[in-house]
């Protein structure tokens, strides 16, 4: 939790105000029994009469009102502070994650990052509010109570001080004992969720392999563990109520007993005893309220840790301090020079000594089996990872010496799976640049063969896109992704198996339309279909992280065994070249 302490800084003034208000409230609350004691001592014992009683009653009412006003103010302040901190944290974590490279996303997992940016922050917010409202109140009450009694009887003071110390000690022990257990519960709940989710998503496989009993056993193991820890924790937290109630009640009784002696000695009056009993009740009650936060504190602590983990992570791919834009004029020459790459903590290199040059106006195609490293290569070019050895040069410059923004501004990237965002077709196409004119948008939609479901519709460019593009089919999403890349007419295009969801006719029409549009640009094309890469000026055959063939389709068909196999399996015998 301490790692997030810096978020309180802008609000320290408010927090101080809240503490002052709480202290004022404490004093108002403690003053009420004073008037009670006066009423008893003076009003009754000394017989000052009804008028006096009414007077003290009025004072008590006034004090109560003041106390409530303080509380309301504290509520407002604590809500605002907590909400403000949450807003700040959300903002920072969003910024941080936006700057993450693929390595960080792999490390944390997207789902976990989402939780850290949402649920976890809410937990911390809740705790902050409770900290200010409740946690500060209890010790202040204890302090105030002791101060209040300083002037009065010492023996009662010791009693109350003793109770306060005991209460603090008890609460602390409970927190220390339960916190690690709460962490465990959280982990177990996550695991329970996971096992259940897997059972559901794998229904077919589980039944096909007759593994129902196995799944039930897996679930049962977690269920048992969770129940055991839950039982322990519940028992401990449930014990707080009876113990604190006993302390509160017992304290009251002891005060009367001890106070009786003082009354006999004449050093104390009965009204004072009654007031002291009230103090005791108020003080212990304040500590009892602390117990409500015990349940939330560990969970929030875990959440805070998770948030801090993200905020403290530096992405592996960062702009070097001296990085700048590309030198003018920009030539879209891409060069891989003995590039090797290993994923963090992997045993083997995913890419070995890759060297090739891709020239403007030409298509460089990548083909090869699964796991050969095609997508890895693309990720390196886009600097979603950095190379482990060797250099990638664009426009003659090592891409690590250029800002990632400058690099990516030159590239139109179409990923394997069409990724779109909530909004309209237009907002998606304008993703990279708000200032493109409508004609350009329409042209790219036409080229991408998306006109039939966009421009042909009455909404046209304002056709709504649901979050994640879920209202569109896979093929439609791909076409819009292509349009999005086309719209800026970048010097470099990367198509990462971007035509896979298109049926063969659309695929062919699309590539026909693309040719004039992408003339002059450097095209990097990854595909499984030989027919798609056949016309490329340069084909790189990748296998197990190495380039095992390089050349045109005709050359490779003559010389490269792997390429021949791939090609022959796709084209029918009659049309084999």
């Amino acid at each position, binding site marked *: 939790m301490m790692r997030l302490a810096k978020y309180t800084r802008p609000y320290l003034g408010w927090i101080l105000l809240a503490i002052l208000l709480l202290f004022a409230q404490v004093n108002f609350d403690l003053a009420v029994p004073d008037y009670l004691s006066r*009423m*008893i001592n003076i009003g009754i014992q000394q*017989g000052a*009469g009804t008028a006096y009683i009414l007077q003290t*009653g009025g004072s008590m009412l006034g004090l*109560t009102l003041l106390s409530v006003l303080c509380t309301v103010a504290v509520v407002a302040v*604590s*809500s605002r502070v907590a909400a403000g901190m949450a*807003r700040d944290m*959300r*903002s920072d974590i*969003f910024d941080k994650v*936006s700057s993450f490279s693929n390595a960080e996303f792999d490390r944390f*997992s997207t*789902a976990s990052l989402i939780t850290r940016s*949402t*649920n976890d922050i*809410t937990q911390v917010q809740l705790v902050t*509010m409770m900290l200010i409202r409740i946690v500060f109140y209890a010790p202040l009450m204890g302090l105030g109570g002791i101060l209040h009694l300083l002037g009065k009887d010492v023996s009662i003071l010791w009693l109350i001080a003793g109770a306060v110390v005991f209460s603090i000690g008890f609460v602390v022990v409970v927190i220390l004992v339960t916190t690690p257990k709460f962490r465990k*519960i959280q982990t177990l709940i996550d695991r329970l*969720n996971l096992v*259940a989710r897997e059972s*559901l998503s794998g*229904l*077919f496989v589980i*039944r*096909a*392999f007759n*593994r129902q009993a196995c*799944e*039930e056993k897996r*679930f*049962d193991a977690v269920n048992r563990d969770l*129940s055991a820890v*839950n039982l322990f924790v519940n*028992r401990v937290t449930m*014990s707080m109520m*009876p113990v604190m*109630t006993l302390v509160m*009640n017992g304290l009251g*009784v002891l005060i*009367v*007993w001890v106070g*009786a002696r003082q009354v*006999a000695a004449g050093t104390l009056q*009965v009204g004072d005893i009654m007031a002291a009993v009230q103090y005791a009740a108020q003080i212990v009650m304040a500590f009892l309220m602390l117990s409500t936060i015990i349940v939330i504190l560990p*969970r929030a602590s875990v959440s805070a840790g998770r948030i801090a983990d993200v905020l403290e992570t530096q992405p592996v791919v960062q702009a070097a301090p001296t990085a700048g834009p590309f030198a003018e004029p920009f030539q879209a020459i891409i060069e891989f020079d003995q590039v090797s790459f290993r994923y963090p903590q992997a*045993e*083997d290199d995913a890419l070995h000594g890759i060297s090739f040059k891709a020239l403007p106006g030409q298509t460089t195609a990548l083909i090869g*089996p*699964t796991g050969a490293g095609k997508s890895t290569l693309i990720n390196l070019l886009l600097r979603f990872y950095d190379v482990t050895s060797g250099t990638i040069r664009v426009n003659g410059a090592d891409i690590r010496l250029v800002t990632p923004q400058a690099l990516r501004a030159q*590239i139109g990237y179409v990923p394997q799976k069409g*990724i779109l*965002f909530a909004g309209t077709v237009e907002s998606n196409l304008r993703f*990279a640049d708000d200032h493109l004119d409508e004609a350009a948008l329409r042209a790219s939609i036409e080229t991408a063969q998306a006109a039939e479901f966009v421009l042909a519709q009455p909404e046209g460019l304002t056709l709504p896109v649901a979050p*994640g593009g879920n209202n569109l089919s896979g093929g439609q999403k791909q076409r819009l992704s292509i349009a999005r890349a086309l719209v800026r007419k970048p010097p470099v295009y990367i198509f990462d198996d971007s035509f896979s969801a298109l049926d*063969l006719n659309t695929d062919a029409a699309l590539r026909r339309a693309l040719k004039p549009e992408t003339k002059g640009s450097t095209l990097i094309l990854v595909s*499984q279909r030989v027919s798609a890469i056949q016309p490329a000026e340069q084909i790189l055959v990748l296998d197990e992280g190495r380039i095992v063939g390089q050349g045109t389709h005709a050359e490779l068909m003559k010389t490269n065994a*792997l390429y021949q196999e791939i090609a022959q*399996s796709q084209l029918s015998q009659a049309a084999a070249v």
Partner: protein
Amino acid sequence: MMRSGLSGSGPGWLDKVKARDLKGSLSKLTGYLAHDKLALIFVLVFAVGSTAANIVGPKMLGEATTLLFKGALAQMGGEGSIDFERIGQLVGFTLGLYLLSALLAYVQSWIMTDVATHITYRFRREISEKINRLPLRYFDGASHGEVLSRITNDVDTVNQTLSQSLTQIVVSAVSVIGVLIMMLSINGLMTLLALLTVPLFMVSGLLIIRQSQTFFKQQQDYLGQVNGQVEEMYGGHVVVQAFNAEAKSKRIFETANKKLYEANWRAQTFSGLMMPIMTFISNLGYVIVVVVGGWLALQKTISVGDILAFIQYVRSFSQPITQLANISNILQQTAAAAERVFEFLEEAEESPETTAPVTLEEVTGRVEFKAVHFGYRPEKIIIQDFGAHVQPGQKIAIVGPTGAGKTTIVKLLMRFYDVNDGAILVDGHDLRDFTRHGLRHMFGMVLQDTWLFNGTIMENIRYGRPDATDEEVFAAARAAHADHFIHTLPDGYHMVLNEETSNISQGQKQLLTIARAILADPRILILDEATSSVDTRTEILIQRAMDHLMKNRTSFVIAHRLSTIRNADLILMVREGNIVEQGRHEALLARGGHYAELYNSQFAQADLVG
């Protein structure tokens, strides 16, 4: 105690949940509790005892105080002294009462948590077992999230009620009655005045709740927006970065974030007013009682100690009242949660197994389809009157456009669904004559939707045959051409697939599922578009391995790629669920029908390359 996965953005008492059949669910829940009847009776008795002891305490203490007061007065007036003996007795007795109360409360909560935890465990276990007995049909209609919610949130709610609220309700009810009795025994007028606060509580409480709910709804809306933004942007971060759209995405996010902030603090402040206002009303009552009490004490109608006792009673009156007022809400929430759990547990299960199952010593793998009719929904029959004979060891290719119903045949073979009419026979026996377990043991399956779990790669492959040796696992991986890439991964075979199994690629997942099937070494093989996300080169190698595997094994291959089915012994052409053509490749081509059309369109592709 722990809320799993909920955002906790509003106090529980503001959630307006209504159960459909309050009485029904609650009575079922009670039935469930009957198992621990004895324990619950103890809990009840102890709770009542503890509360009662607690309630008598203040009265006793009040008497002691009165004695003290009288004694002090007498002492001052020189007429007597403080009766320490009697006071001591009272004090000791009161202390004893409080100790007893605490002890009873402690034991009671010990037992209660035991019962609640056990019931929660039972609920969860029964749900997990139920999942495996439900027909697949059920899951066509229900989302996974829904089912999961029952295991976690709903069971949690019930748990919370049982472990906390149940005893709280009893204690509150007894407190209210007991405190009322005690207050009346002291003075009627003061009791009446104290009771005046109750309607004030109710009214102000309701008002605050109503207004808070508007604010909370707003908050939830904006929270949803922010969450949606986050999900989208994180999920599509690759595109965001590739298009340098970080600034834009931040702008959109900040707008939602700010709005959330505003709604947030309003909602939290307003709902936070509940406590102070309740406290104020309670204090109001306190002051009134003190004043009237003081006046009455002056009149000698009550004693000074009575004032002290009464104050304590008034203080301890407000909490049980609010809790009782909350009862209806708690009951509704619990009933709703319990309802969902019971609903799930009472769902119709798969049709029962036959009582006299067939077990085959040797499975030859002869499959026969006899006039099969089937539809997922009774109004829409997809497979109409399908018949075919498959000889042992033959390779059957099922082809057709997407959504044509190809996987349906597979599901019928595996008895994930039963045919509406007609029969499927294996080695001459109707599928329904086998136990599902026995039937599925004969099949090996590789699906398009790769399913792997959060475990090591070794464990995942071994899922196919749990008693396989390490060597056999390695051999299966090699045959599936997964061995190489496994070695490029951190920790190799011992690498743990993460929760979303997203730390390996789709193609790699396919290879693992194939390795799993190879390890299982079944009689009848089902390959459901297994190789479509694996590139053709690897597909060839796998095919070779599969060919070897498929020798003397009947296999059903569902594929998009015509190249893989050219070697099939029998091709089933599926359109709109129906098998419209059957035969070998050359024969079907010659017929010039649907199959020929499909094949030619694929073939024509090669000529389009410019």
